């Protein structure tokens, strides 16, 4: 299998905001087909690292390789090509409020493909079904649907171009436990069906247990541990002990 092909490789990444050092040399890699998680206490820079990988923030030094491109010196054309191969689900969903759910999902297809409106509609209907929304929901505006539905709609939008990598920023935050578990199942199912690789930032212990193949724990500006859940639990670090032991009681 291609199981061990690296699709993301982060090397010695240093991040600074003004005088505030956020990351001091991070190293990690994500394999193809994996569900990978960034863990760590609030403010440790998990989301920042994800934003750096999806080219929203600049790194101070080091290197990030994504789908075979070094993104710190990527040309805008190649960057645009990469952007069509990932899907990003933001913590606050970031649906375009002036468009209906269906229009939100259809946007990339209209912009980047030459498919006819009929074909686009079929794809949108399919993605709406796949994330577990009802067809009728497609005609509604983001302000007319609940938080869980917004999450699903945003996921459908992230999936519309059949991405290789899916980035999720705290996907289960703001969901009730039942919806959150449904979301976990959905991610696992989509990974199997679409051969996705998933990178997520998460605080949700159940979600971490259910979905993650491997994870990195970021604390004190560096990676404290990287590996499977079992491997991580063996490592002695104040954050890991508190996070897993107190949380799982």
């Amino acid at each position, binding site marked *: 299998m291609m199981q061990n092909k690296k699709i993301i490789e982060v090397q010695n990444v240093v991040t600074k905001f003004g005088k505030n050092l956020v990351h001091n040399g991070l190293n990690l890699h994500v394999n193809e087909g994996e569900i990978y998680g960034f863990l760590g206490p609030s403010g440790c820079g998990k989301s920042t690292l994800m934003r750096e990988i999806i080219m929203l923030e600049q790194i101070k030094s080091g290197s990030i390789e994504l789908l075979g491109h070094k993104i710190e010196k990527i040309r805008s054309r190649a960057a645009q*090509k990469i952007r*069509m191969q990932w899907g990003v689900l933001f913590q606050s969903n970031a649906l*375009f*409020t*002036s468009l*209906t759910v*269906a*229009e939100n999902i259809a946007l990339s*297809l209209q912009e*980047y*493909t*030459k*498919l*006819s409106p009929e*074909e686009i*509609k*079929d*794809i*949108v*209907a*399919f*993605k*709406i*079904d*796949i994330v577990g929304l009802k*067809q009728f929901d*497609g*005609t509604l*505006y*983001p*302000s007319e649907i609940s938080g869980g539905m917004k999450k699903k709609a945003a996921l459908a939008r992230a999936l519309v*171009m*059949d991405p290789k990598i899916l980035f999720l920023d705290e996907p289960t935050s703001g969901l009730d436990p039942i919806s959150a578990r449904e979301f976990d199942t959905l991610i696992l199912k989509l990974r199997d*069906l*679409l*051969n996705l690789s998933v990178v997520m930032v998460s605080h949700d212990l159940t979600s971490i247990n259910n979905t993650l193949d491997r994870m990195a724990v970021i604390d004190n500006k560096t990676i404290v541990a990287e590996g499977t859940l079992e491997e991580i639990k063996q490592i002695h670090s104040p954050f890991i002990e508190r996070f897993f032991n107190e949380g799982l009681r």
Partner: protein
Amino acid sequence: MPNSRKVRLAVKYEEDFVRLKILGDPGVECVHVIANELQTALKDLASTTIMWDLSELKQMDSALALLIVKDIQRAENSDIEVLLTPMENDVEKMLNMAKEHAHFDSSFEPKAIGFIESVGTNSVRRFKDMGAFFGFFGQMSIIFFNSFYHLRHMRWKETVFEIHESGIKALPIIALTMFLIGVVVAYQSASQLKIYGANIFIVDMLGISILRELAPMLAAIIIAGRSGSSYAAQIGVMKITEELDAMRTMGFDPYAFLVLPRMMALMIMMPILIFFADIAGVIGGMLIAKVELGLSPSLFLERFVEVVKVKHFWIGIVKGPFFALLIATIGIYRGLQVKNDTQSIGFNTTKAVVESIFAVIICDAFFSIVFTNLGY
């Protein structure tokens, strides 16, 4: 990356069926090539047995899978047999998923609205809008008069901040614009007055038009563009981010915290701004009178005191608070009308500026009639 030039649908006629073979590795960005070729091919073989040959595909994305599933359904509906070659595991998985989740009959088009319905809904909306505005005005009046009873509850700090923000910071632009308007008006009239040798009357003309009409109007229009829009946008965003709701639950009345300070600030500052606009306009006129007509500033001012009665000045100043009230009310009202989407911020900000300028002009016309009939 899949290459759209290599992607092709090969049509091959065999003994009892037509073989449709997909060549290349089509990603979502080149599925349209297959779609178009399929359309052309189907024209000729509408009722032939079709065999989809997917054997060369290593993987398939959902756009292509949906296209094939749709074609299979079409064929089955008209009792045409469809054959499939053996295919890779991933491709088959995708095809099955497309079959399971496809909805070819859904439509996301908004329901078409007829003429009569649109007139009806629009009328009702306007009517409700008007009701909402009166409701808002009423609520504001209550707060306004209440605050005079409880002066110590008045948010003085916010008021002073707003005086600085929307009053004092607007001074330079208002003075500069009014100075230029004084220049322009004087310049245009100077050439006319010269013909009749009526040079000295430029003082009467400028004095009355600037003090009475031009300065108040210009100050009001600039404030409407500057503060009316910012009130609408700021309060609109506060509504979207639920800051207004947070204030309500904490027991802070948004009207007392946000609305009243802004209203008071504008009502206090507007007459002062008009006063400075008067000065700037007259200085502009005086400059042109000197350059064009040779009228010295001392002569200009002497004549000014003589012919321009002080009532003209007061009429201009008195309009200030009324204009301020209109601008603040409309700007804030528009901000509160913002719905839960970003587009309505732009919409309401535009409305705030347009409506408040319109209201200021109507109000000015009303004053004009009233003062003239009263003999001022």
